[in-house]
């Protein structure tokens, strides 16, 4: 081989990427671990020449933080709710897309749009859709001037307008909005992957199933899903990883306070917690980041283990 004769050349060509990775990925990871184990680490104090003890105080601090449970609960809840829903929907949509010929390209583009649009911007659009405009909303002398388009639709069908995200809204309503938004936002990538998988499935399997008189449902569950299982595993794992890092979508809808004005930080997540701590409690933020890493790691391993048991080829 040519490469083995002059290995330095390969290193030379790789060096720009390696240098960037070292500076912006590897070093921050090492540094995060270091900061997490330095008790009460604080960048300002470092500048002042303070030395920190090695220990687990940061981790204890994270767990003892009063909002930690809320953050963890919201993060896990959003993951557990959105990943299965979006995966199932993406599966159904991609199977349908694969089955039709006219408009397929157009629909593919439409379904892919959220992927290339800024999530904060989409969040603001969603906020407007679920919004209510009026006086004292959620208060005593409530006066709704206009409700958002979603409430308009509900009212059109004779329902009661729901306070989705404004002051005084319920946690269930808030969560519903978040789930809808995150699912919708997660669909394009999943559809893309699954549709690609579907298009590489040999059509003869379906012909064979047809000749054998297989019903559509059975074809889907016994042939399509198993044949797609590697792709499904992939989108579920990436879905969980993305779900555990949920942050900007919530900011997009509820703003920096991550909750309706009456209940700030109600929808706080792990990443939200980490970001806020970055300002002056870098030690605790690092510890929280490591905890999050641990959770994602365990969940991913679990996913891989389960999917290995169910993927057979």
């Amino acid at each position, binding site marked *: 081989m040519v490469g083995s004769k002059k290995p330095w050349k390969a290193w030379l060509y790789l060096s720009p990427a390696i240098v960037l990775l070292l500076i912006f990925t590897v070093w921050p990871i090492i540094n995060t671990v270091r900061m997490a184990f330095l008790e009460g680490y604080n960048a300002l104090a470092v500048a002042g020449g303070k030395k920190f003890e090695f220990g687990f105080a940061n981790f204890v601090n994270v767990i003892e933080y009063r909002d930690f449970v809320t953050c963890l609960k919201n993060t896990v809840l959003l993951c557990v709710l959105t990943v299965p829903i979006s995966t199932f929907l993406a599966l159904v949509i991609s199977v349908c897309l694969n089955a039709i010929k006219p408009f397929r390209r157009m629909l593919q583009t439409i379904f892919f749009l959220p992927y290339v649009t800024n999530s904060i911007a989409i969040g603001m659009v969603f906020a407007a859709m679920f919004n209510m405009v009026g006086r004292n909303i959620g208060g005593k002398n409530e006066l709704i001037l206009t409700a958002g388009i979603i409430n308009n639709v509900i009212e059109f069908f004779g329902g009661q307008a729901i306070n989705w995200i404004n002051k005084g809204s319920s946690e269930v309503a808030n969560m519903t909005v978040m789930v809808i938004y995150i699912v919708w936002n997660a669909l394009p990538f999943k559809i893309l992957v699954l549709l690609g998988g579907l298009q590489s499935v040999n059509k003869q399997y379906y*012909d064979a199933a*047809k*000749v054998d008189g297989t019903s559509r449902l*059975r074809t889907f569950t016994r042939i399509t899903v198993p*044949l797609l299982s590697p792709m499904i595993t992939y989108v579920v794992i990436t879905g969980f990883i993305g779900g555990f890092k949920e942050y900007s979508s919530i900011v997009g809808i509820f703003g920096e306070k991550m909750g309706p004005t009456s209940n700030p930080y109600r929808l706080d997540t792990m990443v939200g917690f980490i970001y806020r701590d970055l300002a002056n409690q870098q030690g605790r933020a690092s510890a929280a980041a490591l905890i999050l890493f641990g959770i994602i790691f365990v969940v991913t391993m679990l996913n891989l283990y389960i999917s290995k048991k169910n993927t057979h080829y």
Partner: protein
Amino acid sequence: MKVVLENVTKIFPPRNKREKEFMAVNDFTFTVPDGKLIGLLGPSGCGKSTTLYMISGLQKVSGGKIYFGDNDVTNLPAESRGVGLVFQNYALYPHLTVKQNILFPLQNLKGSEKLSKKEMLERAYQAAKLVQLEELMERKPNALSGGQQQRVAIARALVKMPGVLLLDEPLSNLDARLRLQTREEIRRIQKETGITTIFVTHDQEEAMSISDMIVVMRDGVIQQVGKPQDVYDNPTNLFVAKFLGTPPINVFNGEVKGGKLYIGEECVLEVAGVADQPVTVGIRPEGFIPAEDGAMTCNLTNLEIMGRDASVVATHPASCNPTIRSIIDGDCKIDTASATVRYNLKPHKVFLFSKENEKRIEVAAQNNDDFLTAALKLKYSKS
């Protein structure tokens, strides 16, 4: 169950504006007798697979009718026709074991046909036994050889006891040795089950060796139907003559003058009752008898001895092919040092075709003549 195809036609619409519509199968009329093994034979793109898929229901007909027994199934979808189909590359479900693959069609049965788990397993093992797969039931398809996969596919097609078994190029993915073995296997299974079987192939040897009847197709049109030996011995046109037989038939430009057939300058055969005209002459490789004073002179190129018999490669100025190949008995002596080789011809191995439409020109009494007497006659007429 017999399968009747009446004026079946398949037209594929043009894929874009520049293309014309494509007539894949043109007015196909044929009855597959009950319990027989039929080979659909033809070169690539002649519409044989399309015909098979129309019988299975995976392709819709553009015109004509298909009957299974007395039932019109023309508009029945594939699901309801109950045929067994073996695909060219088997289409075994890769995530299911051999057993699950074979069970799959049974698990689809509904209503009164529904079987209990025990019955299903019984049937699956029966089918597996028929194709000698009992040992491999727990394997996944990718852990099987090509021949074994093929047998799983056949078992899966047979397990629901279809009235018709369809095989699309069943042997094309197997190596030469396995091919021989598998085609006999297919014959055995077909005989044991008595299922009406139609298989598609472009390999004439394959079709000839196991079929009860062959249907030769070209450009969507049936050329000839019959028992393999009959079609080989009596091709109706030049295409069929060329398509059947290995090595292929030798083709010459010839002329009939006064009841005698001339190839080049030489008079090679008497052909009674044929009007004077230029003709295309087809001579089977086994139709040559080397003789020192033979009627036909060819330029010797090469002698290939293949044990049992020998193959003589020669050239002739009137030949339509670059070389002439004849199969002669291994005991025959050919002088390889000589530049020429001379042959007498076996009359029943020589076919005349019209130059105009490539149709066969019948030669009266030719087939009844003993070739030796014919050769002798020729000898006397010459001297």
